[in-house]
């Protein structure tokens, strides 16, 4: 049954691995959020380039994240691009979620009424000013909850990094398990960590959304 002494024993080790998990989440999400915005903006500005982006997005969304991780880690070295496990894994997660985030941004852009673009033309604003000052501030606040959901989804998929031996939380739990033949405590603790962090993040996103809709709604 549950061994409290063992639990206390493995906590510091798991805590260190949790830092890796949080790092992977944070860096992965920054890549996803920024690259997603860039991809959606390209689709907004040029139909030709937009088509290429649309195909790439579809490609990424229609293949499993695990395969993409393997691809970056095991296949890219064949063409001379060697990435360490953490970099390859985080990059794959970032690229994967960038595809999803770009669709979220796109919905945000489409939600901005045509009249806003027309008023910007009538005031002779440059395309860049129109995008930065008029369209983006209206497109972003409504999509914050959807982006927040992807943050949580991305966070919950970081255990996939254990497949290429990144010692994040899940990998650490597996190592502890194989060394001690005790899986109950480490796996339960990892599950609890994800549960608590997910709930916390969801709460934060809700607070942020409330603030944004009061500010911009």
């Amino acid at each position, binding site marked *: 049954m549950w061994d409290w002494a063992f639990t206390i024993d493995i906590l510091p080790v798991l805590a260190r691995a949790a830092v890796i998990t949080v790092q992977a989440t944070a860096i992965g999400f920054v890549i996803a959020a920024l690259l997603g915005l860039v991809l959606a903006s390209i689709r907004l500005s040029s139909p030709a380039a937009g088509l290429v982006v649309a195909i790439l997005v579809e490609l990424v969304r229609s293949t499993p994240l695990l395969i993409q991780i393997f691809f970056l880690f095991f296949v890219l070295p064949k063409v001379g691009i060697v990435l360490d496990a953490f970099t390859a894994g985080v990059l794959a997660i970032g690229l994967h979620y960038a595809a999803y985030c770009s669709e979220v941004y796109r919905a945000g852009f489409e939600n901005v*009424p045509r*009249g*806003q673009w*027309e*008023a910007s*033309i*009538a*005031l*002779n*604003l*440059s395309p860049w*000013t129109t995008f930065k*000052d*008029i369209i983006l*501030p*209206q497109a972003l606040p409504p999509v914050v909850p959807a982006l927040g959901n992807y943050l949580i989804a991305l966070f919950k998929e970081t255990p996939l990094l254990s497949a290429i031996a990144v010692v994040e939380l899940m990998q650490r739990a597996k190592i502890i398990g194989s060394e001690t033949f005790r899986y109950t405590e480490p796996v339960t603790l990892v599950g609890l960590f994800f549960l608590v962090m997910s709930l916390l993040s969801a709460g934060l996103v809700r607070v942020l959304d409330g603030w944004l809709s009061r500010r*911009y709604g």
Partner: protein
Amino acid sequence: MTEMPMVRYENVSKRYGAFTVLDNLNLDVARGEKVSIIGPSGSGKTTVLRMLMTLESINGGTLWVDGEPMTHMSKNGRLVPADARHIRRIRAKIGMVFQSFNLFPHMTALGNCIEAPITVLGMGRKEAEERAAELLDMVGLSAKKDHYPGQLSGGQQQRVAIARALAMRPKIMLFDEVTSALDPELVGEVLQVIRRIGAEHDLTMLMVTHQMGFAKEFSDRVCFFYQGKICEQGPPAQIFGNPQNERTRQFLNAVLEAG
């Protein structure tokens, strides 16, 4: 040599697929002239303004603004289609007020009025704010300058939109059914502002309107559009008092009965 008109539509056509919205339109608007455009819906009157504001492309003909072609530019002595820079330079002379206001909802009334002067004209923030405050005062909204559009009535929003357009110091102002989205009791305050800028500013104005009383009292000339053509035009006294064309008579009768 006669002075070039402020705006000239020269054989301008606009089609959507097989449907011809405007058919070989020729229309000159003199410097400082106030022209009202009336007509049944679908007659192409809003398109006349939207083409001049470059919100719609044209399928044929040439648009002239202040003596220069807007849709074309001269390159090595030949007229070629205008590039973005040329269009932006000409467009700077034109301001537009929309039926649905189209204020920027995330900016205050003042913010709406300083955005373009700062980013397009390169004006300093302080100067832009002072001028915007003057304009908001002129439209009777100095007390509302820190309000967001969502906190203003339709009439107030439309007056902010007028101030915002004027802040760019246009030579030509386009008013596209600017009172059509307003509750009846708010129409007067907006028309009052238009009257005032008509009197105080040396602006050329084109307005599409359903306010026949206002068109009669305010404009120098009224154009009646029907099926993509100017069916009849002339001074308000003629159009409203003694219309020559049967279509004009039918339209005015219908509007008067409805009103």
